[in-house]
């Protein structure tokens, strides 16, 4: 898997290391939400996530999933990006396979001694919809901003300055470390290295990580020195300026009744079939 050749550049892709999501905005199509202030997008994302997570019926969850899909589309998230969702679906599969059998309720189907319930199935579906919806919302509203603006917006929204500095510095270093890793991995491949499930490969990969740590620590010291030389006192001034406009306020105000409506429908609109409130 790691060794399969992919036509994309940068080299980190060639080494099976996918940092593309960080290196440029997730969006590959036009971000049609670009007109809004990143802070408004962040707040909206948090509100939406909060609403989605508190849904209790699979129907409402499905509505939320479609809405999240629409937001991701507006944000310009390409279908190709959705492969990031695969690990999530693995966990979802475990839940889909176990929950129907572990939630008591009306009979859906019986497999030998195991009895699946409607309620369990509905709960599994609800979780599936909610989990995917939140990720799509994050992709569409935050991921498509790109890492830099997103972190700056977080800083403006009150994330502690030290933490923001750490995130920004880490982002920059991930690029450097990722490239270094990719070059070393390429050189290993040039020496006929093929990762396999054996001691030789594990040792080589462990050494590779160790060497990355060693080289990076040396670089960290150089980075720190260089920053001190340029007058860094731990407080980095953030360069990005955002402009909150009326459309941002309207966006949030407009979203509130929609969210409230969804919650109301969730509680009272679809009573019966998939009601699960524990």
């Amino acid at each position, binding site marked *: 898997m790691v*060794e*399969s*050749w992919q*036509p994309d*550049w940068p080299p980190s892709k*060639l080494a099976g290391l996918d940092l593309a999501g960080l290196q440029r905005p997730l969006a590959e199509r036009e971000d049609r939400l670009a007109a809004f202030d990143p802070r408004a997008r962040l707040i909206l994302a948090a509100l939406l996530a909060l609403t989605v997570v508190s849904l209790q019926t699979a129907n409402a969850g499905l509505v939320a999933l479609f809405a999240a899909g629409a937001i991701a589309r507006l944000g310009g998230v390409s279908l190709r990006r959705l492969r990031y969702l695969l690990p999530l679906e693995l966990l979802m599969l475990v839940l889909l396979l176990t929950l129907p059998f572990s939630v008591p309720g009306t009979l859906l189907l019986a497999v030998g001694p195991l009895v699946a319930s409607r309620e369990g199935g509905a709960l599994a579906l609800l979780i599936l919809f909610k989990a995917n919806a939140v990720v799509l919302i994050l992709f569409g509203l935050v991921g498509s901003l790109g890492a830099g603006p997103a972190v700056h917006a977080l800083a403006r929204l009150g994330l502690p300055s030290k933490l923001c500095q750490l995130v920004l510095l880490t982002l920059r270093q991930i690029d450097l470390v990722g490239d*270094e890793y990719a*070059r*070393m991995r*390429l*050189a*290993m*491949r*040039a*020496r*006929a*290295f*093929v990762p396999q499930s054996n001691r*030789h490969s594990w040792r*080589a990969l462990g*050494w*590779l990580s*160790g*060497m990355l740590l*060693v*080289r990076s620590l040396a670089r960290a010291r150089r980075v720190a020195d260089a920053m001190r030389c340029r007058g860094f006192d731990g407080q980095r001034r953030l360069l990005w300026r955002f402009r909150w406009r009326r459309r941002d306020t309207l966006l949030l105000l407009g979203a509130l009744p929609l969210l409230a409506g969804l919650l109301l429908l969730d509680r009272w609109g679809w009573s019966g079939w998939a009601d699960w409130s524990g």
Partner: protein
Amino acid sequence: MAERGIAGPELELEPEAPEMNERATTIANDGLLVDLEGIGFGYGSTPLLSGLDLRIGRGERVALIGPNGAGKSTLLHLIVGLLRPSVGRIRVLGRDCRSEADFRVARAGVGLVFQQSDDQLFCPTVLDDVAFGPLNLGRSPAAAAAIAERTLAALGLEGYGERVTHRLSGGEKRLVALATVLAMEPQLLLLDEPIGGLDRASEARLLDHLCALPQAMLIVSHEQRVFERLGTRAVVLQDGRLLDAELHWHLHRHAHVHARGLGSPFHVGDGDIF
């Protein structure tokens, strides 16, 4: 430089017309180590190489010259399959290479020495690093260690086996990086800027060792001293294609040495120039 009079001769390269290529290639038609035909490659949508041909026969040491960003390193990576061309045919050691599996075989016979030794060296000790390649080729740990010891000795690095690679000097790292590739017993060496950043003493030591090697080589370098010592012919990478180069030695006192007049273009000894 001019004030120092006879400091360093400059190399002037004149690409020849493409039809002159025939001369060089017919010599080595038998047992070609590398045969590239019509290679095209680009990062993204901008083409870097197009319609590139290259043939390297046994015993040849080809100097690869070209401006920064012309795609010299890319070409080396294409030969061992770390990158794939968009069009064209790659034959390495007489086998057509298309899939990763083909290139895996090729990599055993073609050793790429990276521009940055640090990219290549990642093991705790020198011995581990030199044995890494032979282990990848399926040698037993004992056999790999023996090959590594032998390779180190051949490069005058006896006793370096237990040294920590990370703490070696730049010159030592370069030699060890060469050793890691030589330990795989390749028939062709691809050298990417072999002496870049080395001081004169380390450089001389490395060039001595390279000169003594029997392998064919493709050498990327900006340093004239390198092709002077190593090259049997030179090619220029320009506008995505390779052209045979004719070499003139320019001394600053306007002493021209026309390499061709001396039979083999690079038989210009050190003494003639310095």
